[in-house]
């Protein structure tokens, strides 16, 4: 083994490493794994249809993406952060502290969150937020009293639901989906069952009661899934009584395995979500560093391409994959064209 050869190549490599900390010519995107599929469709089409290189889209989650986004301005930071929720005050402040002041917020559309179970399992076809709350909350109201959740079967509290063990697979706390589930389902169910009232009547402060409303039971009937929907699907596959929470796009891609339940009588579909009838949905965003426009080639073009009617419109490939397109897309397009940052024109 020639050590000289190895040493020389090592030195050459180190020199190379030092010399290449130079210009980056592709757009760098990171963030939400919910937005990732859509971003990958756009990135692929962007690379195929323009002269710019294909953007790099990393996954990792909304919070991780925004954290990296807020690390500062410069070529070794990302240009775009995908998020399945709006950026928080705290994050805007962190951004500003690192010098990232001009942020363009782009809403690309909506994502529906659906409750689904095994195709051949018990007939879970219709839920109310109250049902979900009764099944999953640590404390529920029975005969006007707030007690530790005694229910083990769905039929225990709602005779219309199947006589099946409660087993729910819900997204873990690091997911943006969890937040929507807590707000739109658990909190709503808490109010509908009268648990919120009972809690405040028992002397809890309003904030504490709201926090208690969105907690879930810890006796194993509700399982947090920290992975992605594929993992939830695997758990449902092996448990006929299991109820899982999925994104609309994921459900639509796996309709032969899953059957979906209505929420408050509304079936989750692109139309019902766009109109706001189906209650459990959320907007999806991406955030652009304005300081990088003009520095990183293709950044603005990528954003324009993303929100164009051809892609994000109701008959574009994103909608075909499962994105609920934004009725106000035209306003978003205008905002991107004018590079309107957050805080401007609001």
């Amino acid at each position, binding site marked *: 083994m020639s050590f000289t050869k190895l040493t020389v190549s090592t030195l050459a490599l180190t020199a190379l490493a030092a010399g290449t900390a130079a210009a980056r010519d592709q757009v760098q995107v990171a963030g939400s794994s919910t937005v990732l599929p859509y971003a990958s469709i756009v990135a*692929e089409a962007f690379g195929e249809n323009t002269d710019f290189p*294909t953007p790099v889209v990393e*996954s*990792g989650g909304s919070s991780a993406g925004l954290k990296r986004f807020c690390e500062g301005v410069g070529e070794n930071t990302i240009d775009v952060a995908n998020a399945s929720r709006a950026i928080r005050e705290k994050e805007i402040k962190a951004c500003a502290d690192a010098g990232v002041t001009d942020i363009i917020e782009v809403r690309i559309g909506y994502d529906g969150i659906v409750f689904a179970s095994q195709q051949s399992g018990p007939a879970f076809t219709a839920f109310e937020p109250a049902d979900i709350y009764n099944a999953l909350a640590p404390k529920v109201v029975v005969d006007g009293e707030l007690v530790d959740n005694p229910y083990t079967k769905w039929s225990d509290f709602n005779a219309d639901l199947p006589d099946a063990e409660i087993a729910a697979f819900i997204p873990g706390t690091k997911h943006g989906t969890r937040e929507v589930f807590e707000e739109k389902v658990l909190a709503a169910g808490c109010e509908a069952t009268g648990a919120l009232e009972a809690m405040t009547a028992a002397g809890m402060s309003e904030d504490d009661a709201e926090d208690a409303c969105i907690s879930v039971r810890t006796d194993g009937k509700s399982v947090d899934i920290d992975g992605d929907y594929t993992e939830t699907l695997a758990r449902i596959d092996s448990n006929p009584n299991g109820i899982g929470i999925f994104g609309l796009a994921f459900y*639509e891609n*796996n309709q032969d395995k899953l059957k979906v339940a209505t929420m408050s009588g509304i079936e989750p579909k692109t139309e019902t979500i766009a109109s706001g009838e189906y209650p459990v949905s959320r907007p999806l965003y991406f955030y652009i560093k304005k300081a990088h426009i003009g520095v990183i080639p293709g950044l603005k073009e990528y954003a324009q391409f993303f929100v164009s009617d051809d892609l994000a419109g109701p008959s574009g490939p994103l909608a075909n994959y499962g994105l609920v397109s934004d009725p106000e897309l035209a306003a978003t397009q205008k905002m991107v064209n004018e590079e309107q940052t957050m805080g401007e024109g609001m």
Partner: protein
Amino acid sequence: MADATANSPRRHGSLTTTDPRTKRRNAAEARFRAYGIAAIGLGLFFLVVLATSIIRSGVPAFTTTVVSLEMNVSQAEYDEAESGMLKTAAYTKLFITKLGAQLREAGIGDDVQDDAIERIMGKVGSDMRSFYQENPDSIGETVTFTLNASSRVDGYFKGRVNRETLVDSRFLVATDLDVVDALTEAGIITRQFDWGFLTGKDAGVDNPGGAGIGASVIGSFFMMLVVLVLSLPIGVAASIYLEEFAPKNRWTDIIEVNISNLAAVPSIVFGILGLAVFIQFAGLPQSAPLVGGLVLTLMTLPTIIISTRASLKAVPPSIRDAALGVGASKMQAVFHHVLPLAAPGILTGTIIGLAQALGETAPLLLIGMVGFVAREYPGGFIEGFVEPNSAMPAQIYTWAARSDVAFYEKAWGGIIVLLVFLLIMNAIAIVLRRRFERRW
């Protein structure tokens, strides 16, 4: 029991009859052998189960369902397709209308509608567009295109989709399968080996047919190159110094303990370190195999150092003494006599370290190599280190998480490719070891 045996007076029986004590000892040995065979059997059983399940789930990824069509794109049609923003979609549409017209004319499948064909076809536009971009002379001439069918039609041929479980959706409705059957009979839809899977790049989530593992194999290759070139010389040099030259004192003890501890550090920690040091501090590019390789080098070094030291220790001292005795310097003794004898062990350690590094995903997550990254082949050798790319395990992980089942199958196929890559690496190591092996 034991006491009773010890205290009983020892009888000296005949050699031809086995006394109870010998019987017990023989039985114990037989039991132990049975345990050993059972353990090996169990291991083999799991290996067979694993291998069959990988092969059964992964092999379908190597074939694909394609639609062949002879068609003629006129200059006007070409110009129109090129005029829009989403040109590839225009090409897809062009293909669909032409196929629909041909089918209706030939009377294949009764009165096939274009929207049915749209569901049957994959995203074929980009293949068509790149063909015409490369061969502008073919415009206006009849060309045979062989393009991917949609992932669900592909699934129909692989048994993933069938009429009983199919739920009508905008991706596929039951009557489409009749069209598919008619097209198969007419020889328009066929199955073939999917070279694209081996040579291709990652594709968008709505285009499973176009996704391949090729680009990430290249990414893994460049990463392994960095790991090998950096960790082998550094690791071997460090172990030679520690084993042969360094004084045995408290400092070397501390170093030794730390190296052992470092070998046990979870790989994700190295990823965080890589992000902080290589990307944020040193300003190296994100998502680059170079950075991935550097991170994995840190991870592999302790493994290599430990195994190299073990194999240096295993060289009998008589070899060193003899070399020193005939007047060799310490360095000559090490490099001319000890190191060659230790080389097979060093190679084994290196290959174990590399194999570990090859399968690592966690540290890559933090330096931006997981996601939709392996989209382009590097432009050249140097670019291979610095242009964004993914690695095989990261690609498999990404595919497994996608909602279309076709990607799950690709993930299994990717595992097979990863294993083959690993076997090739191991084979090279064995060949090298044979060449270096010396007996004394």
